[in-house]
């Protein structure tokens, strides 16, 4: 649970700080550096440095290092000689900066959707566990049907049902709502299992006997029992939603082209000609891979339980 919370906190930090750390703006163009390859960091006695690239042939987009020239890190070098740590894309924009800027849209959306999913899932799950009867059956059955559906088909169909061009806040809200709609059943089922077991405990019975309201029992006694489960689920949901955003943007149904996100950058980079011409533009894919990999490695035991469908974890 502590690992899960730490991971989520780190992702929040990346979303907040990413754009602040970027050396260049997301749409800053360097016209002499279209498809420029990455400039690796080097070390010598005087510290870290890079070697700036000079355009050799504009049509062929070939570049050469200036021997003897020496530039510092991108943050300290004047913008006249750009230092592109991960190269540039087809419009001469710094891939490193765009990946950092994209973190905010991609992780931000994923975090918002995760918060919504946990909230709705915990509410419906604990409600079903406490109320029993028809409510319980309805919530679980609806969740079952939603869980069987192939997520992507539904996401794409729902997104396509909305107007294609929307203002940015509306897009974020729409995408988050779609993710929440598809994500809550798993959380609700997990919370339901815990609440059902917890509701038979003596301290809950005692609280009820002392006249505590159902709301108080739920918020004071039942939901705290789900903390560990919810923390782990939060850490597992974020990468899932990051990938969902990437897929939607790749299909042209996510963020519009102007918004830097890992998905829009990927849809730019992911044509065969672009990939063979400038493989470094796939950096956002690597960023996504890292987010998922770190989650998987840190939370492997929890993830296994998640895969095998058992709910209780901590």
């Amino acid at each position: 649970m502590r690992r899960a919370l730490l991971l989520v906190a780190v992702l929040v930090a990346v979303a907040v700080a990413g754009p602040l750390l970027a050396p260049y703006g997301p749409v800053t163009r360097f016209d002499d550096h279209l498809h420029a390859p990455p400039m690796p960091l080097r070390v010598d006695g005087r510290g870290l440095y890079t070697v700036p690239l000079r355009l050799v042939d504009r049509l062929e987009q070939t570049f050469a290092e200036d021997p003897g020239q020496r530039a510092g890190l991108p943050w300290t070098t004047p913008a006249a000689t750009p230092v592109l740590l991960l190269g540039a894309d087809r419009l001469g924009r710094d891939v490193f900066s765009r990946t950092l800027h994209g973190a905010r849209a991609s992780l931000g959306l994923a975090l918002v959707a995760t918060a919504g999913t946990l909230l709705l899932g915990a509410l419906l799950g604990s409600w079903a566990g406490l109320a029993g009867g028809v409510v319980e059956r309805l919530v679980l059955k609806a969740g079952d049907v939603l869980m069987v559906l192939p997520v992507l088909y539904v996401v794409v169909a729902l997104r396509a049902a909305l107007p294609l061009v929307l203002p940015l806040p509306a897009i974020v809200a729409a995408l988050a709502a779609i993710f929440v709609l598809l994500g809550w059943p798993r959380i609700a089922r997990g919370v339901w299992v815990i609440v059902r077991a917890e509701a038979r405990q003596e301290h809950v019975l005692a609280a009820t006997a002392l006249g505590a309201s159902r709301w108080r029992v739920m918020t004071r006694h039942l939901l705290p029992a789900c903390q560990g489960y919810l923390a782990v689920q939060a850490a597992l949901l974020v990468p899932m939603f990051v990938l969902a955003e990437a897929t939607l943007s790749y299909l042209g149904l996510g963020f519009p082209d102007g918004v830097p996100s890992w998905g829009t950058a990927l849809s730019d980079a992911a044509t065969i000609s672009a990939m063979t011409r400038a493989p470094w533009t796939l950096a956002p894919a690597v960023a996504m891979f890292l987010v998922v990999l770190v989650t998987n490695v840190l939370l492997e035991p929890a993830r296994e339980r998640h895969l095998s469908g058992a709910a209780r974890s901590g």
Partner: protein
Amino acid sequence: MSLARFAVGRLVSGAIFALVVASLTLLLARLVPGDPSSEEQLRRSPEEIAALRAELGLDQPFLVQYARWLGGLARLDLGRSSLYRRPVTDLVGERAANTALLALAALLVATAIGLPLGRLAGSTHGLASRLARAASLAVLSVPPLLSALLLVFIAARTGWLPAGGITSGGLTGAAWFVDLLRHLPVPVLALALPLAATLERLQARAMADTIGRPFVAASRARGLAVDAAVRVHAWPVSLAPVLGSYGVLVGALFSGSFVVEIVTAWPGLGRLLFDALSARDVWLVAGCGALGAVSLAAGTTLADIAHAAIDPRVLEGRSE
């Protein structure tokens, strides 16, 4: 509950599920702003637009459209696609066969890789077991979108295999078949690798759980070697929970194949649905939804029935 009763019950609820999902798709397709005539607004006169809408049956109230569509469904007539100017039934059937080919091949490959590796990782503690575990953790972090892009990239860069499509066209007989086989590895692997990793993890866990159970210790106490105890006793028992998860994996398989089809230009159901949605082709969207829902229901139902046949505890509702 007998297996037959269980099977009938699952078939009925599967059919209801398919009908509900198909109906929702049609509703969704009608909620989409615009219809096939929208694109023609600028080019045609209002009378022609009205005629086009009447021809497609879009001038009727929704309930009439729905009733007609359900009636057509009973006769396997799902209307005409305005995008391809062909009957939806033919179009959807062709594309679904392509998706089925992709999904089944991927499922076979994933099973062939995942289960043996999972057995290895779950029953031993050596280097091979650790490697299998590390590999599947890494592969699990590469979802179909990224694995498809990566494989297409490799195929395009090296030229070993065609990077997209299902056939090169203009070929017949044996040459066509060989060409199809050459187009298969990229999309099938893109879809199968994450699935294989999932199966490996599930199988490893099931195997480890089973080995800890008393009957395995008992068979060791009777003098069976470790290998034999695992092979004869633990392995078959550990398969049951893994097979039980195939029903859930069918949905993941569909989702994955959607992305893979788009990235590798595989002419399957997912691509068709995407094109139909972009073109506001109402009846084609509904047709894709109907067939998708039927295949999904069939897949999960079959998996559940197979699971019940292997593991009778499912029938009594007390499987883990």
